């Protein structure tokens, strides 16, 4: 193939630059707002800069730190439960062929595609009876609906490339079941648990309607707090909380960039973030 001409080469660079600018642009006004002290139409930049919004966002009055704690706690618990339940299921799906496997995979895939609100309304009326509405435990449980399928599918991919023969070798050398799991299985599947777990965390981190409905406005995670400041028109505080809210995701992306490509099952989870 001939190399592209100079003209088409510069067209390529130009459209690439436009693409990247468009992808980053929506985050820029948020960042500027968080340092703005009044930013009226038609000024392109704030007349005055200030750290007031950050001061307020990080103070007790705004409730940000409390929300941050609640959001981390819910996401960590949902992730932990997803790992405990999803790793065994992923092992069954990745290592074995059995009758009804297609149906099981379909049932696990369904929550990835069916929107949360379609499930959450029915679940809400059951959770009322069980006293789980307006509680943190209820929110953690409902977050399992999007996080667990995702963790299971990632682990199924890991186990599909896993050789269980190492386990029987360890057993024949005298290791017991716990030792075998700890020293043989776990190190082999650890990368999958870490990447899958980080993204299950992010899936929980980004939930809105499930938290709103089951938490009933009592369990206030960061996105709920962010929304209330955004709809109140407090752009500067919204900006500061928004930046705090997206930081973990960006850090996780930087940390896992090497492990990720579109052919990796982990990417599918982005559809729910």
């Amino acid at each position, binding site marked *: 193939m001939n190399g592209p001409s100079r003209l088409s080469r510069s067209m390529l660079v130009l459209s690439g630059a436009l693409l990247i600018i468009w992808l980053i642009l929506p985050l820029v006004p948020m960042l500027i707002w968080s340092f703005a002290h009044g930013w009226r139409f038609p000024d392109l930049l704030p007349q005055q800069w200030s750290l007031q919004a950050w001061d307020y966002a990080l103070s007790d009055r705004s409730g940000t730190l409390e929300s941050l704690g609640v959001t981390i706690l819910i996401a960590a618990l949902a992730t932990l439960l997803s790992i405990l339940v999803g790793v065994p299921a992923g092992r069954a799906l990745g290592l074995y062929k059995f009758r009804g496997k297609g149906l099981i995979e379909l049932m696990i895939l369904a929550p990835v595609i069916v929107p949360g*609100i379609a*499930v959450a309304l029915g679940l809400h009326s059951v959770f009322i009876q069980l006293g789980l509405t307006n509680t943190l435990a209820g929110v953690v449980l409902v977050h399992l609906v999007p996080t667990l399928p995702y963790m299971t599918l990632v682990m199924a991919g890991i186990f599909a490339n896993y050789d269980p023969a190492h386990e029987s070798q360890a057993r024949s050398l005298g290791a017991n079941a716990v030792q075998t799991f700890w020293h043989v299985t776990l190190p082999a599947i650890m990368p999958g648990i870490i990447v899958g777990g980080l993204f299950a965390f992010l899936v929980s981190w980004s939930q809105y309607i499930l938290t709103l*409905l089951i938490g009933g406005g009592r369990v206030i995670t960061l996105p709920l707090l962010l929304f209330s400041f955004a709809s109140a028109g407090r752009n500067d505080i919204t900006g500061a909380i928004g930046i705090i809210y997206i930081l973990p995701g960006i850090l996780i992306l930087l940390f896992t960039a090497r492990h990720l490509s579109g052919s990796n099952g982990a990417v599918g989870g982005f559809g*729910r973030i």
Partner: protein
Amino acid sequence: MSDRMRIALLLAPAMTVIVVLFFGGLAVGVMRSFNWMPVIGLTEPNLDAYRAVLSDPDFLRSFGLTLYISITSTLISAVIAIAAALLLRQSFAGRGAINLLFQLNLTVPHIVGAIGVLYLFSQSGFFARMAFHIGLIARPAEFPALVFDPFAIGIILQYVWKEVPFIGVIVLAQMQALGTDYESVARSLGASRWQAFRHVLLPLILPGVLSASIIVFAFTFGAYEVPLLLGASHPQALPVLAYKTYTDVDLAARPEAMAMAVVIALLSALMIWAYLRATRARLRS
């Protein structure tokens, strides 16, 4: 322990969670949409909620709007994503950094993107200010309404922003796995660049594009916070209407909310069927 037993034990916890929380939630929604809930004394199922919802012009308008938003967002995202993947598969200096920037908003939650779109495209937003400085408008109100607008432009812009990298990353991986050999052969046999793309590369990547697009379509059809923040107050996107109806002070409206949730679930069931067909085609190719 037999393999059957082992498989059943490994799967039991996960299937319990999914059957109880996911299918249980769906089932209760379906039952309540038929006004059928023996536990609380509703023993005669009926179609009242569906009759009320399907004859309500507000519901029909919401349904139409949501369908329009999902179709438009998915199509635009898929086309731009393919173009972006074609661009990013070239080798150039700084490719690693550009690829990382391309993936940056994958982890940014939708609500943050929606706020960003609001600050960019509202009538006092960044682009309105630019328009003022170039002399296109004299007042914010003269800037075209791109958010809270009847054509849901703001909502679509947000979805396109968020979903182009999602579809793009999947398509890019497919292109890189395929390599350029097939296209080179087509080119050496006299195909133009467009022909090589249209008749060789596109059919090969189409199943992947389809399965990613189906996830996007189902997501945008059921998403709540984006249309809540960027949408017009009337008509509202279906999930917004369903939530509003559910939390209405009039508890009698709840079965109607459930009926709307069932409509959303049915449409996503259709998407799952399409997804399976697409992934089967992908495995075959």
